[in-house]
């Protein structure tokens, strides 16, 4: 079997209980994610998304079940953990819990220095990632003087500089203004172009439907449904169980087709822009 065929992430019977809680935060999760996929994790707060992410990076050790990253099982030795954390990076939801240094430059250098690379290489990489993510204009400001969106950019740079194979973003657009949300989405698109597997927790069904290759619906520590956006979004009852409604564009498209304004296509539109184009054509 060649290297490219191995799934980026594979979970088998994963269960995890927080100490002293007695409730399973993850309850027998099975999942397979192909390399380079864009995966949206959806579900209410407390459905197990963040717990799952912390397991993928070896921060939480599951009570039972197995995790394989790029075909290799996580081993919970010093070396094994270092290895998995090199491959899987997490951008945390709250940048203030991730950025722990006052200087942007120092902050970004932390991860790559922990990988034990040469100082010159590390400096080059830090400069490169700052340029790529448009951090250069505010690189000299202390962390407490950055806006929420700028902190998020730095938080992503923190991880990107380590060149992970799998990048996890926990609600990256939470509490961001429209400009920075778009910026984050653009960065995420670039990640995919580099064949990085992106796992993103989000509550925005419209975005997930448009962006993802695979949507994972979670509830009470279990996977309710997993599949392509079309598969997942066609089942209204299922979405409702996960606390979601169908994407606005789909509902609008179907209603308009029903009333005869437009013709049904083989592939329903993914975004409002696509729907507008359909309407323009009549």
């Amino acid at each position, binding site marked *: 079997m060649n290297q490219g065929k191995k799934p980026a992430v594979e979970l088998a019977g994963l269960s995890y209980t927080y100490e002293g809680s007695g409730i399973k935060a993850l309850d027998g999760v099975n999942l397979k994610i192909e390399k380079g996929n864009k995966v949206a994790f959806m579900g209410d707060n407390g459905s197990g998304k963040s717990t799952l992410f912390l397991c993928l990076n070896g921060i939480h050790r599951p009570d039972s079940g197995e995790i394989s990253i790029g075909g290799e099982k996580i081993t919970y030795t010093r070396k094994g953990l270092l290895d998995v954390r090199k491959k899987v990076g997490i951008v945390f939801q709250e940048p203030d*819990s991730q950025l722990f240094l006052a*200087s942007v430059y120092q*902050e970004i250098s*932390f991860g790559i220095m922990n990988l034990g690379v040469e100082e010159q290489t590390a400096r080059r990489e830090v400069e490169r990632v700052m340029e790529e993510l448009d951090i250069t204009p505010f690189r*000299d400001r*202390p962390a407490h*003087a950055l806006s929420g969106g700028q902190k998020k950019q730095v938080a992503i740079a923190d*991880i990107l500089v380590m060149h992970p194979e799998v990048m996890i973003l926990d609600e990256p657009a939470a509490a961001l203004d429209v400009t920075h949300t778009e910026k984050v989405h653009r960065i995420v698109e670039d990640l995919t172009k580099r064949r990085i597997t992106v796992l993103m927790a989000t509550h925005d069904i419209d975005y997930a439907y448009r962006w993802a290759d695979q949507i994972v619906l979670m509830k009470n520590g279990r996977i309710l449904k997993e599949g392509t956006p079309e598969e997942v979004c066609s089942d209204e009852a299922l979405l409702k169980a996960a606390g979601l409604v169908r994407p606005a564009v789909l509902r609008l498209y179907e209603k308009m087709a029903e009333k005869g304004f437009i013709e049904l296509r083989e592939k329903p539109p993914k975004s409002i822009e696509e729907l507008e184009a359909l309407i323009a054509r009549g």
Partner: protein
Amino acid sequence: MLSIDKLCCQSALRYANAAEKFVYAVLTLCICVAGRSWTAAVFAFAANGVLTVWKGKIPLLRYLRLLLVPAVFLIVGTAAVIVNLSRNPMDAFALSVGEWYLTGSRASILWGLNLCATAFASVSCLYFLSLNTTMTDILGVLRRMHLPSLLIELMMLIYRFLFILLETASAIMTAQESRLGNRNFAVRVRSFGGMASALFIRAMKRANALYDAMESRCYDGELRVLAEEHPARKREIAGIAAFETILIALTLLT
């Protein structure tokens, strides 16, 4: 403290080599304190003012206002040196208070003024350093001086999280105020207690989250980070050496 932090980011001398600024400030401070010379103190005070306001482009008014902060302590402290309560009047001045005199000698006036000058010069040295050097750069210098890394790492973390603590506290207080949380003294005390306990719990949670985030970036107990370097300039080093020599000469001559 917050205004100093903002000012030093705007300083035109911010990107000068931090070690140079550190050595200049500390050396000048030491000479002023050890030498106790009038002329040296005035010279150093003037030099720091010129460097900070003219070279560093720190607004003059802000600088003067900052200098006023320690002035109150200084004046009270100096007054205690100059003014004595005694049965016998001394040579400079004497105010009779019943059988006693509020009085002072010429020597003590000179001594007090000298103290004042030295103190202002020393304060201006510290202001020069803190108004033109970011905390991160100062810590970088201390690291190069091989201060224990535990100490440096603690200072780095404290410096970052102090601001988060202040932000959180002020957010909680605003929320309390908008619900009449400081209507009267009793309510205010209760609100403050509530704020303090909420802050403590949040700090604990944040510490846990932070540790997870650091671990997920391969943290293994040692903070390895790169500092940005701004090279030292020969001309500046020569300038500092010349200045300190003049300062020592002034101290010895007077």
